[in-house]
C-alpha cells in the first residue's frame, strides 16, 4: 500500500486548496465568528487528510473533538462575549504587517521547498506494519507502552488549565453578596419590574425575520424584543402593517 493512489490524489488536490483558503480566511477575517468558521473548514479538511492517509482514528478525533467540540465551544464563548467585537485594524508597530507577511511567506517557502526536496523519491515505509493489528490497536499499544508517562502527565496539564481558568475568570462572591431565592423573587415582583418573559422578535408582526420587532398591544413596535447586536433594518410597508388576527 505504498505510493499515492488516484483517489488519494483527487482528495488531496480538492481539499488542500480549501484548507489553505480556510487558514488564510481565519487570519484575515475581521470578525471573530467568521475566523472561527474558517478555522472549522481547515480542521475538517485536515481530518479528511488524516483518514485518507490511513489514520482513521486520528481523523475522526480531529473532526469530533476539535471541530465538533472545541470549535463549537469556542463559538459559544464568542457569542457570549459579544459577536460584534472585532479586531482593530490600526497597526501599533509601523510596517509590522508587511514585514510579518514577507518573513512569513519566506519561512513557509523555505520550509516547504526544503521538505519537498527532501521527500522527493522517498519510499513510504512502515504504514502497513503500524496498522497491522488495526489502527486503534496500534495507537493504544504506543500510548500504553512507550508514551504512557506522557499520556498520564497530560492530566497535570488539564488540572493546570482548570485551576488557571478559575483563577483568571472566577470572582468569588463575598459573604453578604449572596442573594437568596426569596430575595430574588421579591425583587422580581417589585413594582416597576416586568416579571414575565419579554416578547421575542416578530410577535404579532407580518414578518418572520429576527430583525422585525414585536408589536405591543397598541400596534407600536417593541424595541426590547430585538437583539441589540442586530443591525437596524428599514421595514417595508407590508412588514409594518398590523397582522390580521380576526376575520380569517
Amino acid at each position: 500500500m505504498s505510493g499515492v493512489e488516484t483517489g488519494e490524489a483527487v482528495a488531496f488536490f480538492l481539499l488542500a486548496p480549501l484548507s489553505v483558503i480556510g487558514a488564510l480566511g481565519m487570519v484575515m477575517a475581521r470578525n471573530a465568528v467568521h475566523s472561527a468558521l474558517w478555522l472549522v473548514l481547515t480542521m475538517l479538511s485536515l481530518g479528511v487528510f488524516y483518514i485518507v492517509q490511513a489514520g482513521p482514528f486520528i481523523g475522526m478525533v480531529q473532526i469530533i473533538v476539535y471541530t465538533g467540540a472545541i470549535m463549537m465551544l469556542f463559538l459559544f464563548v464568542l457569542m457570549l462575549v459579544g459577536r460584534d467585537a472585532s479586531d482593530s485594524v490600526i497597526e501599533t508597530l509601523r510596517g509590522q504587517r508587511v514585514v510579518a507577511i514577507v518573513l512569513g511567506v519566506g519561512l513557509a517557502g523555505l520550509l516547504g521547498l526544503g521538505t519537498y526536496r527532501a521527500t522527493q523519491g522517498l519510499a513510504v515505509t512502515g504504514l502497513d506494519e503500524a496498522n497491522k493489528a488495526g489502527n486503534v490497536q496500534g495507537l493504544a499499544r504506543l500510548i500504553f507502552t512507550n508514551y504512557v508517562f506522557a499520556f498520564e502527565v497530560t492530566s497535570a496539564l488539564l488540572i493546570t488549565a482548570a485551576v488557571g481558568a478559575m483563577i483568571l475568570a472566577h470572582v468569588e462572591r463575598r459573604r453578604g453578596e449572596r442573594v437568596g431565592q426569596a430575595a430574588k423573587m421579591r425583587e422580581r415582583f417589585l413594582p416597576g419590574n416586568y416579571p414575565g418573559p419579554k416578547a421575542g422578535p416578530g410577535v404579532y408582526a407580518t414578518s418572520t425575520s429576527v430583525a422585525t420587532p414585536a408589536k405591543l398591544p397598541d400596534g407600536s413596535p417593541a424595541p426590547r424584543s430585538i437583539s441589540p447586536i442586530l443591525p437596524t433594518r428599514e421595514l417595508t410597508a407590508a412588514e409594518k402593517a398590523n397582522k390580521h388576527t380576526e376575520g380569517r
Partner: protein
Amino acid sequence: MPELKLPDIDYAALLPMLILFGAACVGVLIEGFVPRSVRNMVQLVLSLAAMVAALVFVIRRAGEVTAENAATIGGAIMIDNMGLFMEGALLVLGLVSLLLFGERTLERGGAFVPHAAVTVGSERDREQAVDSGATEVYPLALFSLGGMLMFVTANDLLTMFVALEVFSLPLYLMCALARRKRLLSQESALKYFLLGAYASAFFLFGVAMIYGFAKGVDFRAIHEAVRGSETSPTLLLIGLALVAIGLLFKIAAAPFHVWTPDVYQGAPTPVTAFMAACTKAAAFGALLRVLYVGFDGAKWHFTPVLGAVAVLTMLVGAVLAVTQTDLKRLLAYSSVANAGYLMVGLLGGNKDGLSSTLFYLVAYGFTVIAAFALVSLVRDADGEATHLSRWAGLGRRSPLFAGIFTFLLLAFAGIPLTSGFMAKFGVFGAAIAGDQTWLVIFGVLTSIVLAFPYLRVVVMMWLSEPGETTPSVSIPGVLTSAVLGIGTVATLLLGVLPGPLLELADQASSFIR
C-alpha cells in the same frame, strides 16, 4: 495480534516527579477544603515538604545509576547522572525561590493578587488590597517544577514536548498574578503565553520533521539515524532548527529573547526569580540532552549556527542592559546575556563543556534568586521601586542590603572570589578546549560591556546622596532573609570553595544513551 507487554516502571526512579505532581494535586484540594486564614501556611509547608522529599529521593538514587536501570517507563524517562544532577539542582533552586512565594511581611497579603479576575482599578480591586493573596500559586509552582524535572530527564522528543507544556502553562498563569501594577502583569502573561505557544508549535513541527528523518523520536533512534542514515539530511536540518528554536525561546537566547524583559518586569518578583533560575536551568538541561545525546553526530552542522546565536545573545543582552533604567529589566537583559555565556560552555562540546555549564546554571541560579529577593525589599507606597534613579543613595540608607546587592552584582560581572568568576572561567575554558576561541573572545568583550550597567548601579547606590524620593528598604521577613542568606552565602562559597560542586558536576557530566 501479539500480546501487549506493559513497560516496567521503576517507581523509585520516578518518585521525585510523582511526589511533586501528587503534592500539587493535594494542593488543589487544599484550595477547596482548608479555610482561607491558614491556607498560605498549609500550602507553603506542603510544597516545601514535597520538594524536600523529592530531593531526598534524588540523592538516594545518586549512587544507584547504572546503564541498565537508567531508562524506565518504556524508555520515555532517562534517569542518568546528568538527569539526576539537573533534578537535584532544579529542586534546590525551586526550594529557595519558593520561600519568596511565602513572604507575607513585606506587603500585607504577599506578592500575589487575591482575586485575579477582579477588574483592575475597580472598587472591588481597591477593597481586595488588604486581602490575603492567592494561594493557588503553590500547586502551580509544584506542577511547573514537576514538569521541569520531566523536561530534563525526557528521553524522547514527544515526552519532552509534553513536559515543556506542563512546566510552561503554570508559569504563564503565575505571571498574571502580581498584586501591584496588575495591568503590566496581565500584559506580560499574555505576551509570554502567546509567544510561548508559538515557540511550542515550532518545537512540535520540528519533532514531526525529525520523525520523518529518523523514523522515531527517541534519542537513541535519532542518534543512530544521524550517524548512518541514507535519507537526505535536509529533514534533519529543518527539524533540528525548529526544535532548537523552541528551546532557545525558553532559555531567552537572541533573537528569541524579546519576551524576557517584559515578562521579568511584569511578573510578581518571586515568580521572576523562579523563572530566572529554574526555567533557564530546565531549558538548558533539555538543550544539553538534545544536542549531546540525540544530535551529537550533527555537531558540525549546529555548532556554527548556535555559535552565531550565542554571540548575538551576548551582544544583545550586554548592549541593551546598558540602556535600561528599570532594575528588573536590567536583570532581564543580564539574564539574556548569561544565556549566551551558558551557550558558550555548551558549544565547547566536550565533557568540560557539560560540567562547566552545569556549574554555571547552579551558580547563576543562586545569585539571581538572591538579586530578585533584594529587588523585592526596596519599596515605597506603590510597591517595589524598581526605577534605577530611585536606588540612588541606598548605600547611605541601609549599608547592609546595598552591600549584599553590590556583592551580587559583582558576581554577575564575574569578579574573582564570587561564583560568577568560577562559572565564567569554567565555560570559557571549556570553549577554548573545544576550539571555540572566537566565542570566548566575544564572551570576554561582552562581559566588559556588561560590567558597566552593574557598576553604574553600584556607583549610584554608594556615591549619590539619598534624595527625597529614595525609598526605604523594608526589613525582610524570615523567608526572604533566608533566601538572601542562602543566595549570598552560595555565591560566596561557590567562588571561594567551588571544589565540591565542580566535582559533582564533573561526575554528573555523562549521559546514557
